[in-house]
């Protein structure tokens, strides 16, 4: 189903999606973004500052939220113009590397709805992101151009 500007209204919901996050994802994100903060790859360092384990980069979660909106809006990452979030809870990513198998990792669940139609084919979307029941983003808003 292709979403169009004329086909959505205030309140239209985005289909919910969930994304799995593993340690490998965080390592790749660290390399690609240049954010090598030790709490995103060392359990020992994370625990030393009171965290339960390595946590995901907030910007990794924000990037997933951006992708969630982009995918709904037709797949063009350039369609998202304004995008802002508050980081309200951390996303612990328990160790999933061998030999612990697939018991680790984390899942971020996204849902959202159209908050406003702005004209010029642009809408504002409100995004809800949850991990382990906690809201990890608040006031997560993206302005996106629809076909």
């Amino acid at each position: 189903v292709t979403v169009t500007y004329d086909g959505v209204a205030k309140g239209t919901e985005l289909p919910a999606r969930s994304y799995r996050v593993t340690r490998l994802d965080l390592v790749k994100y660290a390399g690609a973004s240049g954010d090598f903060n030790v709490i995103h790859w060392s359990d020992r360092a994370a625990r030393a500052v009171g965290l339960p384990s390595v946590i995901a980069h907030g910007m990794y979660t924000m990037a997933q939220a951006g992708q969630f909106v982009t995918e709904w809006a037709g797949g063009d990452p350039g369609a998202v113009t304004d995008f802002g979030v508050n980081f309200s809870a951390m996303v612990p990513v328990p160790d999933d590397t061998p030999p612990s198998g697939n018991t680790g990792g984390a899942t971020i669940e996204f849902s959202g709805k159209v908050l406003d139609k702005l004209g010029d084919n642009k809408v504002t979307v409100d995004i809800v992101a949850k991990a382990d029941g906690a809201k990890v983003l608040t006031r997560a808003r993206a302005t996106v151009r629809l076909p």
Partner: protein
Amino acid sequence: MALNPEFVGRVYGPGAPYEVSRVKIADFADAIGEPSELCRDRDAAVKAGYPDVIAPPTFAVVISMHAADEANNDPGLGLDYSMVVHGQQSFSHSRPLHAGDVVVATTTIESIKSVGTMSMLVTSTDIVTAAGEHVCTAKSMLVERRADA
């Protein structure tokens, strides 16, 4: 010790020009799981109306974080990075960054607030082309938790 409020309004940069490359965009898209061919295939991007492959919206953090670090690491500001968490982030794009862009970034310290043992530092980074065209403004709020406040 709280953050030095006299640093509000200070401007850092512009730093050295940053050249946006196809490989870096593709690596970033891979890392965040963005599947769009517009981030990888120049012909597809051109067909969609872009000059070259485009970056996902949060790619701008690669440039803005590096630029804002110049402010965050200013010794006179007094930020203890080991006690920092990312509180807010926003991007306002005039257009997507694309491969071949050569941009410079300038960071302004917008506000410093201290509430109890917490300090909030807001920086705003403007990313513009060498020719002066605005591409993106990235705002970041860092929260510093103080053990010794």
